[in-house]
């Protein structure tokens, strides 16, 4: 499905009109926050771990070049082939070539936002290689030709009836809406794919520099099978995903599953440190890691916004966000959504394409509060809104209105007149209504101009004090 953040306004309107999806997303988000709170509340040193992890990530970002070189050389020592991809096109080509070289006509994939970011599935399909998503939620949205609506729960917006219908249509099975039966259908369908795929593709939650390995965290065991069964494994990983060493991993593993799914631990934490060795447990014969830049080095160049690269994609900020809870993930028009998506979209796609994304926030601060890394998303959204304006990407009428306001606000007499005038005009509106606020879909109104505003109250206070 071709979506673009340029059409955010349209998607928001569509999302707000879809009550069943709004209810499903809001309920799921609320349940997720409650389970996260329960687990986080049970860890007495939660705040200390948060700070520790923050300081580890900060250190990694500020020495990213050194950590990348260390990671590369230790991966190579473990027999992992490391590739560097400047952008999405380069990543797609690298993965496509590995697939062709191993003769894969079909690849199994475990959930990876990074591969969604670079549009890998479409590229593989265009080149005659069938990509099969094996995470249940991803499998469902792939069958529907959609993109995920949540960083962690891709099919959050779909009801069991929707899923029953898509399985019936696309997999030719009898309709059922029983979650256990739907899961079983996917298990049987995908097991055949696991057994026949020559190549598996995953993302990586962490790249571990000193030990030269990657870590993939999951619940379904599909990532484990994606790594173990095919002969070749490729992990596509953003350059910012590094952590220094294995000793740092437990700190991250305290925060990630708790924040993502309200678990003390995910069911499977896979640490992949190279191809299978002779006579030892299963593993692929070839392991490749694709290190993706795709704008990350540019983001690093802003001392403030660099903090957004600390994100571990847990999705907690989505669940806590009052805006996401109403509009769901598809309204953002890209693979990253919710508060962190609002911050990443204009940074990855540019101020023109992503101009509306930073406005999808009430700046209430719930995202920062829940974020395990304490990323100050509201602060970054303000800066990004500012960048959008400076890049002259805000709307024409908004620019004119702001210019007029700035002109009037700097001249008290003019200001008094221009606020007095609409106040009088407003009296003519039936039922003493206020002017609707543009851009709020008719749901908000501008404060009444004839109300006792700050200036009037201040003058009255002054008179009283005199």
């Amino acid at each position, binding site marked *: 499905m071709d979506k673009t953040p340029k059409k955010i306004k349209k998607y928001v309107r569509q999302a707000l009109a879809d009550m069943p999806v709004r209810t499903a997303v809001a309920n799921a988000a609320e349940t997720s926050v409650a389970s996260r709170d329960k687990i986080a509340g049970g860890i*007495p040193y939660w705040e200390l771990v948060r700070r520790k992890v923050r300081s580890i990530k900060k250190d990694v*970002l500020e020495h990213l070049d050194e950590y990348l070189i260390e990671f590369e050389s230790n991966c190579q020592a473990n027999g992992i082939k490391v590739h560097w991809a400047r952008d999405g096109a380069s990543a797609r080509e690298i993965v496509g070539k590995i697939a062709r070289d191993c003769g894969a006509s079909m690849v199994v994939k475990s959930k990876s936002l990074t591969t969604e970011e670079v549009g890998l599935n479409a590229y593989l399909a265009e080149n005659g290689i069938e990509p099969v998503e094996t995470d249940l939620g991803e499998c469902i949205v792939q069958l529907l030709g959609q993109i995920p609506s949540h960083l962690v729960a891709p099919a959050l917006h779909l009801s069991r009836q929707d899923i029953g219908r898509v399985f019936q249509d696309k997999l030719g099975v009898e309709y059922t809406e029983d979650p256990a039966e739907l899961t079983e259908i996917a298990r049987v369908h995908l097991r055949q794919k696991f057994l026949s795929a020559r190549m598996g593709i995953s993302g990586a939650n962490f790249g571990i520099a000193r030990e030269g390995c990657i870590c993939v965290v999951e*619940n379904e065991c599909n990532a*484990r099978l994606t790594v173990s069964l095919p002969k070749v494994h490729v992990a596509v990983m953003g350059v910012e995903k590094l952590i220094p060493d294995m000793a740092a991993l437990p700190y991250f593993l305290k925060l990630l599953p708790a924040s993502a799914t309200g678990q003390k631990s995910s069911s*499977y934490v896979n*640490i992949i440190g190279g191809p299978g060795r002779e006579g*030892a447990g299963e593993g692929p014969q070839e392991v490749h890691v694709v290190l993706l830049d795709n704008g990350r080095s540019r983001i690093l160049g802003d001392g403030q916004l660099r903090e957004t690269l600390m994100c571990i994609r847990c999705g907690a900020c989505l669940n806590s966000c009052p805006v996401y809870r109403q509009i769901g993930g598809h309204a953002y028009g890209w693979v990253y959504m919710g508060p962190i998506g609002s911050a990443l979209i204009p940074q990855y796609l540019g101020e023109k394409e992503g101009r509306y994304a930073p406005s999808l926030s009430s700046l209430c601060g719930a995202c920062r509060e829940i974020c395990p890394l304490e990323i100050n998303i509201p602060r970054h959204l303000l800066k990004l809104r500012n960048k959008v304006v400076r890049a002259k990407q805000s709307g024409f009428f908004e620019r004119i209105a702001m210019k007029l306001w700035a002109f009037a606000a700097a001249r008290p007499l003019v200001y008094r007149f221009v606020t007095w005038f609409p106040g009088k005009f407003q009296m003519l509106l039936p039922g003493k209504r206020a002017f609707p606020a543009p851009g709020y879909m008719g749901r908000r109104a501008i404060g009444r101009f004839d109300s006792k505003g700050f200036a009037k109250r201040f003058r009255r206070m002054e008179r009283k004090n005199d």
Partner: protein
Amino acid sequence: MTDSDRNDILADIRSSLEIASDIPFAVGADEQPLEGALAAELFDDPQTMRTRFAEELAAVSADFDVLDDQTAAAKWAGEVLAVDGFNTLVVAEEGICLDIAKAIQSDRPDLEIIVAGDLDGAERQARLAQPSAALVEVDYALADIGSLVVLRDNTASMLPHFLPESVMVIVRPEQLLANQFELIKVLPQDAGGNMVFITGPSRTADVEKVLILGAHGPRRVSVGMLESAK
């Protein structure tokens, strides 16, 4: 990949890093209080640790039993097998699990035992993908989260841990550690690279957030703590 991609990316990163950071918190902040808090989390005695392990396993829908010896282990595994009615039992290789499997077989001659390490790759995958149960060992267990840890290079085949529907796991008391922090301290130097933490059966909540056990991996995980290998 071209070398120029690599060098360009590194050059861009270096030039970006010339900009001063505006991320609060100094490296190493709160190091001491955190170490203190982690130390306070350690268990006073092995029994408390074992009790916590059992509780955490229950919380992730895995069973826990204490097994006095191999005879008790065979009885336990036989009972778990009977719950799902499997006639095939997979073990990774020769060793204690195979001994226990043979002990079960002496009472149940219809039981087929598959030694995964004896099969070649394709056959092993195909056989283990059929409905079956497995009896496996792990390298460590973690009390605070109910996790089992497998170092891949220590087993002839890891598929028995992941492909069968019911997985029975033998854990030795000395393998039980307090948490991941303690695990990292005892891991062999070269072991970090290939490892899996397993916490309960595979699961999904992708259909309306309803929790279903057995997404792509085991539906049932049963842990037996074997007191004596005899």
